[in-house]
């Protein structure tokens, strides 16, 4: 076990101490509320209906997209082997998935969840995969730990970024969200507290997966009225195979620092997020988005960009492949509308104009060797139906 695992311990102790000092005792006659734990009422009070032990549900998206560029594939995630453009003029693979979810409440303080997703993945299939599976122990309602496969909340919508129904866009802004590492196998602890009118939630996480070892991070979300602020820091070791940085046969330490804010008073929303990733080079990415709700329609506008990398000192000189990889940069203007056409369903259509930087093919994949698309502009049109059940 890595030493970094233990970095979380002082945090846990501090959280525990502050709970003991400041929280009202958990009332044994009333139990917990958050997390849906089942309570028993005290004598003399009316007992409320119990929640069932298991709750089943799920969500999905059925969509298609089209790209005006046929010399490379546009993808929403770098784990996809093919996208829209060169491999096919129209494809469902960027925008289609189905997920089944079950939550279990096993005891007043113990709950768990399992989520299985079928979506387009590395091997080019839709074979169902265990996306998340974890067990949660709530010491008190505002302090819990989880063990298992966990979502990493790098961005505001990272944990739910597969749930199309949960946001206005067809997909979260790709220039930023393509950088998020979806999940890790490990442990986390979350402490929630009220600071005046605001609610703060801080999470410490440690985990491993095959391409990102010894990941640890701190994630904070502060909600004040209709505003949400988010900040996170995480680091991990990634194999140079994935980074292509000229350093061979090694695991390179890399880190993400991200901040974001959103404001959603009901009739409209605005949000923006930013990240800096450091490996042997550093890159910055950001987006800003706003939308307005008119009855069942939510038109929105987003600008996103991911900038070129600059090499950090202390590493061997980068190879040509590393320079090419670090140079990748692009920006996207997206215009779309969400239509809530019936309960638990939405329909969305989105137009993206993507501009590749002057010295890169951006984040396109499957561009044939020697094809130079520097500075190209192209558009992508996507339509999707999202649902929850």
């Amino acid at each position, binding site marked *: 076990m890595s030493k970094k695992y233990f970095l979380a311990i002082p945090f846990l102790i501090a959280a525990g101490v502050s709970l003991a000092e400041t929280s009202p005792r958990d009332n044994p006659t009333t139990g917990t*509320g*958050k997390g849906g734990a089942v309570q028993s009422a005290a004598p003399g*009070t009316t007992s409320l209906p119990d929640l069932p032990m298991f*709750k089943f549900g799920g969500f999905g998206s059925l969509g298609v997209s089209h790209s005006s560029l046929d010399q490379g594939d546009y993808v929403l995630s770098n784990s996809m082997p093919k996208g829209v453009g060169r491999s096919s003029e129209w494809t469902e693979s960027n925008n289609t998935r189905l997920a089944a979810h079950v*939550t279990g409440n096993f005891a007043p303080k113990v709950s768990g969840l399992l989520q299985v997703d079928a979506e387009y993945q590395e091997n080019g299939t839709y074979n169902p995969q265990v996306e998340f599976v974890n067990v949660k122990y709530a010491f008190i309602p505002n302090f819990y730990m989880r063990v298992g496969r966990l979502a990493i909340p790098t961005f505001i919508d990272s944990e739910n970024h597969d749930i199309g129904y949960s946001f206005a866009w067809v997909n979260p802004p790709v220039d930023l969200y393509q950088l998020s590492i979806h999940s890790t196998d490990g442990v986390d602890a979350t402490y929630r507290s009220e600071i005046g009118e605001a609610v703060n939630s801080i999470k410490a996480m440690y985990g491993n997966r095959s391409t990102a070892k010894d990941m640890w991070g701190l994630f904070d979300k502060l909600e004040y009225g209709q505003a949400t602020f988010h900040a996170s820091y995480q680091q991990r070791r990634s194999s140079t195979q994935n980074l292509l940085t000229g350093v061979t046969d090694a695991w390179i330490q890399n880190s993400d620092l991200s901040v974001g804010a959103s404001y959603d008073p009901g009739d409209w929303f605005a949000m923006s997020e930013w990240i800096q990733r450091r490996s042997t080079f550093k890159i910055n990415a950001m987006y800003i988005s706003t939308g307005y709700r008119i009855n069942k329609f939510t038109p929105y506008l987003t600008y996103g960009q991911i900038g070129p990398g600059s090499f950090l000192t202390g590493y061997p000189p980068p190879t040509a492949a590393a320079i090419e990889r670090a140079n990748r940069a692009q920006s996207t203007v997206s215009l779309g509308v969400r239509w809530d056409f019936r309960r638990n369903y939405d329909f969305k259509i989105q137009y993206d104009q993507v501009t590749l930087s002057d010295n890169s093919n951006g984040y396109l994949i499957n561009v044939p060797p020697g094809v130079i698309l520097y500075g190209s502009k192209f558009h992508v049109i996507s339509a999707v139906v999202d649902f929850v059940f």
Partner: protein
Amino acid sequence: MFRNSLILPLLVAVATFVASAHAEVVVVVSSKSSVKSLTSEQTTKIFLGKVVTFPNGQTAFPIDQPEGSAIRDEFYSKVVHKNSSQLTAYWAKVIFTGDGRPPKLLADNVAVRKAIAGNPNAIGYIDKSAVNRSVRVVLKP
């Protein structure tokens, strides 16, 4: 006499129209509860599961009314500033990330009032016309 015979049905008609078209939602707790009043922001946090206690530290059990009911829509649009799609989107995020579950659900104003009357930790929203001495109004949005 003629005048009265016209005015009375008119009044009844107007009153009926007002009562049906403008169900007036109020937020209530048990009359045994020590909570005297709440703001919209405090009520919102309780119903969205962002806090599990009243401002005085007492545990809070929110009780919802059925999806599609007029009183529910009015409560969430007036107090929480979310329509039914926004609320579904919010709970989809919370449920599927394992962060919590929506409030318990009871069938109507009377069922909610009865449950609240008997439980000093409960909080709900009912039509103003359903209020009696067993519950205390803590917010008139």
